[in-house]
């Protein structure tokens, strides 16, 4: 079930950043975050709403700086189109998890994967990989329960959330 964005600490923010897809843009954005004394906890990247743009979801620990500074400083970058702080927006964040199971497979594995709504994306005699989309907390819960069924590797993407990001009026 989707859950609202919630900061693990009061100074953790989830920022959605629209940027121009130009060489070095990730370096500029991450440099800006660290230069201002913030800690970049995670970054997810996807195509932007307009051609030639990207969307970045940054989870940032703002540390001792005022929380709004992260967004304010990012807005100053020339290649940044707009920044939205989603932390208290109530939007739902989603992520993708990949679960790897190694043979021999447990009898109830497929039933359990079906119960979680996971989709088998790769199957060989030695290995089965299932994909599950959902809120981060839900994927963590699935990981805990599936651990007893021969779970090998597990990878979870960084959270993303759909929300309009509109440039501020100059």
């Amino acid at each position: 079930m989707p859950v609202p964005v919630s900061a693990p600490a009061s100074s953790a923010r989830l920022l959605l950043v629209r940027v121009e897809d130009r060489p070095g843009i990730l370096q500029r954005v991450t440099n800006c975050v660290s230069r201002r004394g913030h800690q970049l906890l995670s970054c997810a990247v996807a195509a932007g709403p307009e051609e030639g743009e990207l969307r970045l979801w940054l989870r940032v620990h703002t540390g001792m700086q005022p929380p709004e500074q992260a967004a304010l400083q990012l807005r100053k970058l020339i290649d940044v189109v707009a920044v939205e702080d989603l932390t208290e927006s109530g939007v739902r964040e989603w992520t993708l998890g990949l679960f790897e199971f190694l043979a021999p497979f447990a009898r109830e594995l497929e039933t359990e994967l079906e119960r979680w709504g996971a989709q088998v994306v790769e199957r060989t005699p030695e290995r089965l990989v299932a994909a599950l989309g959902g809120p981060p907390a839900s994927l963590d819960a699935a990981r805990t329960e599936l651990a007893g069924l021969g779970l090998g590797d597990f990878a979870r993407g960084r959270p993303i959330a759909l929300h309009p990001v509109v440039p501020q009026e100059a």
Partner: protein
Amino acid sequence: MSTFPAFRPDHRKQPELEVVPARSGAEVLLSALVGQGVDTVFGIPGGANLPIYRHLPQFPIRHVLVRHEQGAAHMADGYARASGRVGVCIATSGPGALNLVTGLATAHFDSVPVVALTGQVASPTIGTDAFQESDVIGSCLSVTKHSYQLRDPGEIEEVVAEAFHVARTGRPGAVLIDIPKDVQQAHLGDDRPLRRIRRHAAPAPAPEQQIEAAAGYLSGARRLVILAGRGVAIAGAQEALLKLALKLDAPVGTTLLGTGVFPNPHPLGLGLVGFMGTGYCNRAVTDCDLLLMVGMRADDRVTCRLDGFAPRAEHIIHVNIDPAELGKTVAADCPIVGDARDVLERLAAQAEPGSRPEWREQVDDWRRQHPLRHPRNGRLQPQEVLRAYYARRRPADITVADVGLNQMWAATGWSGGESGLFLNSGGQGTMGFALPAAIGAQAAAPGSRVFAICGEGGLVMTVQELATAVEAGLPVKVLILNNRQLGMVRQFQDDFYGGVRSQVDHTVTPDFPTLAQAFGCYGEAVDELAEVGPALDRAIAHPGPAVLEFRIDPEAGIFPIVPLGGTLSEFVECPYP
């Protein structure tokens, strides 16, 4: 018998033998600079920018050949601060480009529009650790407003136009354009349509309701203080500031970078605020019920301990063109994003005229209680030298301070009536700034007299640029306040680090008059107060660059000073009578 070839072709005399593209990337670049109004650049040629220098003589651009790239960046900075135009510096790749970094940081932190052009190794060799390759884009990310690495010669005009636009729009800053050698050499067609450049939007005028609210607060204040920073100079808002202060009967203090934006002496002038600010200014800020901060950042050197900054203020109005500066350190209940001149003029139009005799009397009491003082021990005092200098200051003169005690003495003592240009490195505090920045300022303002006030420690960091001044015919006057030590560090060690003087004494310093003469400058040393004025007059009268060494009291310090971790009101005054 010589082993050298008997004949060396002189290519400079045979341009017709060279196969030169009709319109190379370098020519397009130089043409674009001319199109941006560039008349002067500061730089050094090297392997990766030679195509630019090959064509530079064809364009109406004055090139000032510096002796170190850091000097080029500071000169571009000084040129920009003195003229309000974009300053331009050029370096080659690798060490040349990296030598610009300190100068770009200095300019960027003080919101100075500078465009740096760096040569880069040819595109196919980028990333191969080629000779004199450096990642100057990565190195400059945090000290520039934006940067470009050109990969397509077709982008040159757009990138130059956009870079200048970015450098001077909104809050000004430094912009870097890194140009691989093959891009400089590439051939371009003549009839290429100019693509649209991206526009970096300047903030819109502040909303009327914010101005109305601020004007209401100002009109109702009983103990009002205005603090002004460099944003006032950038916006050309000196007159608007004076007009508002007079209308509101409001005392005005300035930040280090704001020095010069308000006349001094003036009945409303409070001088410098902050860590080494005047006692009366710091007390006024501490006791005010309304603080208007305009065109300033409110960094730690201004506020000192934050809980002691304007603790009795019922309202704080903070005006800055950069939204990120509002609330960064000081929480203002009336933040206004806007150009200082626009906001000050609108506030002056809306605020009720006021008279605050009790507050003014209180401020004048503090002025009498906490005058700027210095020892009188028979040794030459820096304040005495500066008093003689400022007595000779004309409104069009440009004063450039270096960093350290000399800077603080020059700022606290800034005088001479009308507002005027006082340039210094406030954000980065870059020692060695003054001489090259003064040279740049002189290039921008040939009709002005330009003075660099230095300590001996800072001057020797960039002293080689005296050669540049002589060669370029830029008659800057360098006033060295020589205390034969790193004076501010020494004072910090004395006051805050247990009195342990560690590595601050310059037991060897150059014979500055001789050094100056070796570079082709006028040089003179002064030990006695009686000789200060005549020496200044001789240096001013000299048609070329001049260096005056004032051998000052080595124990001279800066007072008042707020102890580290203290509040504005906890300043310590000069302990000597």
